[in-house]
C-alpha cells in the first residue's frame, strides 16, 4: 500500500515540478501546487470509493485528484487552459478538479465556499438513503470563514456523512495560522458535536487510518468528522507570490526538512524496499508527467466563439 501511495506522491511531485517549469516558460499563466501536501492528500483519498463518494477539492488538491483517478494529461490540459480540459474547458484556473464520473465536483476559487456544498451532498445521501459520503478538502485559512462554521453546524445537527479534511500548512498566503485561528483547528470539532482529529500529514499510515475511521463513521450513519492534517507548504503560495518577503530562510529550511515525499521515501528504504525500484518509480513518474505535458501541448486551444457556451445548463 505504502508503495502505491509513494508512486502517486512521486507522480504528483513530478507533475508539480513540471508545472512550475511550464509557468516559468510563460506557457501557463497561473500555477497552483500541492508540494508538501502529497502524503496527506494521497493517503486520505485512498480511503474513499472513487466514483461513489463525492469529493469537493480545492486548488491545492492535485495529489488527491491523481489518487482518485485524475490523469496527468487531464491536469496539463487544465494547466494550459486547453479546449479539452475536462474540468472546465479552459474557463477556470488550473487544478479546479471537476469530473462527474469520479464525483469530483467543480469548485470556485473562493476559499471555503465548498464546505457547505459537501454538507449538502451529505444531506443528499441521507435523503436518497445511499451510503456515499462527502469530503471537503481545504486549508487552515479556510477555517476562519463563516462557511466553515455553517457547514459544520448543519453537518453536526443532521449527522450528515461528511468528512472535513483540513490541510494545515501554517500559512494562508502570508498570514500565519495564529492570525487565522485563535485555537488549534481540531479543537473546533467539539463545538459542532463531532469528533476532531489531528494527524501528522507527513505520515500516510496515520492519515489513512484517521480518514478510514472517519469514512466508516460517516457511512454507518454516525455523522461527520473534522480532520486536521499538519502539512508543510514547500514553495510559494502560487507563481504570483514571492514568499521570501514573509518567510525566512530558516522557516523554509524547517519546512523542507518535513518534505513528505522524502520522508516516505526514507521509510520505504528502512522498510527494506530496494532503492533501485524506488528510483525506477521516480523515473516512470517523470516520464509520465513529460508525456502528459507533450500531449497537452499538442491539444487545441478553446475557441473564442465558445466563450459564452454553457452560461446556462444545456444551452449547447
Amino acid at each position, binding site marked *: 500500500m505504502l508503495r502505491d501511495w509513494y508512486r502517486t506522491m512521486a507522480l504528483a511531485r513530478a507533475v508539480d515540478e513540471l508545472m512550475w517549469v511550464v509557468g516559468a516558460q510563460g506557457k501557463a499563466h497561473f500555477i497552483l501546487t500541492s508540494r508538501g501536501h502529497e502524503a496527506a492528500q494521497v493517503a486520505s483519498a485512498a480511503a474513499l470509493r472513487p466514483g461513489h463518494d463525492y469529493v469537493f477539492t480545492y486548488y491545492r488538491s492535485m495529489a488527491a485528484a491523481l489518487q482518485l483517478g485524475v490523469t496527468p494529461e487531464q491536469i496539463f490540459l487544465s494547466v494550459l487552459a486547453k479546449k479539452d480540459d475536462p474540468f472546465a474547458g479552459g474557463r477556470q484556473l488550473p487544478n479546479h478538479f471537476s469530473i*462527474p464520473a469520479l464525483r469530483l465536483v467543480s469548485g470556485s476559487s473562493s476559499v471555503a*465556499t465548498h464546505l*457547505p456544498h459537501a454538507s449538502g451532498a451529505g444531506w443528499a445521501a441521507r*435523503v436518497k438513503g445511499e451510503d456515499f459520503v462527502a469530503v471537503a478538502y481545504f486549508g487552515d485559512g479556510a477555517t476562519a470563514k463563516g*462557511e466553515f462554521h455553517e457547514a459544520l453546524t448543519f453537518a453536526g445537527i443532521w449527522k450528515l456523512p461528511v468528512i472535513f479534511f483540513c490541510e494545515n500548512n501554517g500559512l494562508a498566503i502570508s498570514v500565519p495560522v495564529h492570525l487565522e485561528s485563535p485555537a488549534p483547528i481540531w479543537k473546533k470539532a467539539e463545538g459542532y458535536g463531532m469528533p476532531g482529529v489531528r494527524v501528522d500529514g507527513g505520515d500516510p499510515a496515520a492519515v489513512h487510518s484517521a480518514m478510514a475511521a472517519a469514512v466508516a463513521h460517516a457511512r454507518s450513519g454516525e455523522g461527520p468528522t473534522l480532520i486536521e492534517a499538519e502539512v508543510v507548504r514547500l514553495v510559494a503560495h502560487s507563481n504570483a507570490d514571492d514568499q521570501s518577503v514573509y518567510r525566512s530562510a530558516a522557516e523554509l529550511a524547517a519546512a523542507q526538512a518535513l518534505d513528505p515525499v522524502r520522508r516516505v521515501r526514507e521509510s520505504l528504504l528502512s522498510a527494506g524496499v530496494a532503492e533501485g525500484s524506488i528510483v525506477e518509480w521516480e523515473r516512470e513518474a517523470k516520464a509520465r508527467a513529460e508525456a502528459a505535458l507533450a500531449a497537452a501541448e499538442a491539444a487545441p486551444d478553446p475557441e473564442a466563439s465558445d466563450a459564452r457556451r454553457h452560461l446556462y445548463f444545456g444551452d449547447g
Partner: protein
Amino acid sequence: MAELTMLEAITLALREELARDPSVVLIGEDIGRKGGVFGATRGLQREFGELRVMDAAIAEVGIAGMAIGAACAGLRPVAEFQFADYILPAFDQIVNEAATLSYRSNGAYACPVVFRAPCGAGVHGGLYHSQSVETFFVHVPGLKVVVPSNPTDARGLLKSAIRDDNPVVFLEHKGSYRRERGEVPAGDVTEPLGRARVVREGSDVSVVTYGVGVRWAREAAASLEAEGVSAEIVDLRTVHPFDREAVARSVTKTSRAVVVHEANKTLGAGAEVAAFLAEELFEALDAPVARVAAKDSHVPYALAQETAIVPGVADVVAAVRQVVGF
C-alpha cells in the same frame, strides 16, 4: 379547480413537485413545524418528513450552500429565505457559486436550485422586511429571476423553476400572497420561464412591469380608460433574462413606454428595460421612456414615510399621462 390565493398556489406547487419527484427537497428557517412565517410550506413537513422539508438553522450561507451541494449530488432543492432582505448573506453562494457552476464546469454540472423569498413593501415591516432585491441578481449571467403577479403564474412558474436545471431566484411579493386570488387550472400545468405575457391589450402606451406592479398597472389602466387612454400591460414574469421580443413588439405598436416596479429607481430592473428601448427602439419611440419606481431609499417603518417612498397606482397614472401627453 378552486380559486386560490397566490400563497395557496405556491403551497400547491411545492406539494405537487414534492409528490411528483422524490429528488425535490425544501430547506429554510421555520418551514417545517411552523410551516413558514407566511405559511407557504404549511403541512408539507408532516406530509414529506423532516429530511425533505428541513427546518434550517439561521445560516443563510449554509442554506444556499447546502442546496447547491445537494443539487450537485442529484437533488432539486428549493431554499426558502424568510424574507428577501435576508437572502443577501447568501449573495456570494448564489452569484459566485450557483450562477457559475454550469459555465465553470464547461456544462458538466447543472445547478437545479430554486432560491425562494418573500419580497416587497407595503406590509409595514421596515427596512428589513420590505426589500426588493431583483437588481442584484438580474446583473448576473447564469441566473434566472422570476417574479409572479398572480396565483396561476406563481404555481406554473414555480413548477417550471423547480424543473429547470439552472439556479432560479424566485421572488414572491408578500403583499400579493393573500390579495391576489384566482382560478388555478387543474392538472400538471406549468408556465414557461423567459416569456412575458400581455395581460391587457392597449394602443396608446405600453406599461412594462412585473410582480405587484401588474396590479398597479391594471388599476391605473382602468382609470386611464375613463380618460380615453388605452394602456397595454406587459407582465414580464421572468425579469431575467427578460422577454425582449415581447417588450419590443408592444412598444413598436404603442410607441410609448412606462416601466413600473417597486424596487428603487437607480439601476432598478427598469433601467435595463429603458436602456434597451433607448438603444433598440429609438425610432419607434414618440416620447421619453418613463420609470415608476421607489424613491431611492431604504423603506422606513413609519407609515407616512413608507408611503412617501414606495410607488403605487397614482404614480403609474401620472407617468402614463405625462408620456401620452408628450
